[in-house]
């Protein structure tokens, strides 16, 4: 059984870590950026899911 939300969070976490280390140099800055990207990806995906909810499936 695949937990879709868990996979979403794992994917978002990996992407957040990657970009935090790619763009930021300082440890504190990295952590703040990581959390920001993680929150944006997870909350953005959930929000997009809710926005798509009223549209019927084909």
């Amino acid at each position, binding site marked *: 059984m695949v937990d879709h939300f868990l996979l979403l969070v794992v*994917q978002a976490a990996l992407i957040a870590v990657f970009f935090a*280390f790619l763009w930021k140099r300082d440890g504190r800055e990295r952590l703040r950026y990581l959390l920001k990207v993680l929150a944006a990806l997870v909350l953005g995906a959930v929000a997009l899911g809710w926005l798509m909810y009223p549209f019927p499936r084909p």
Partner: protein
Amino acid sequence: MATVREDVRMGRGAASLPEHVLMVAAWLVPGLGHFLLNRKLRAAVFSAVITVEFVLGLALHGELILPRAGEPLSYLAAVATVGNGILFLLATLLGVGEGVVTAASYEYGNSFLLTAGMMNLLLVLDVHDIVVGRKE
């Protein structure tokens, strides 16, 4: 002996390797380009993130997409697939990454595999930027 900064300013890596060799190394093994430029922590993190992403993609029955006739988007996906470097080559040699279209996690697997490849390609560009002195 030249410092890293001097090496970078002179268009060389810390290992005094030419730029194109560093870029090929960065593509071939995730994190190797940064390792050769003495960015060891970043190299370790990038290597771990990309490898985990790739292995999860395979475990989720994702497909290593290669160009298919009549499917223009498959060419773009193939760029990301090949971007995985040695991970892609190893998976191909081992005969994994065929993908199971009927699996519930197929699309998730694909996005993990494509993301890993795109991340590795970004690292190649990052190595280039470091070598030419555009980035520290």
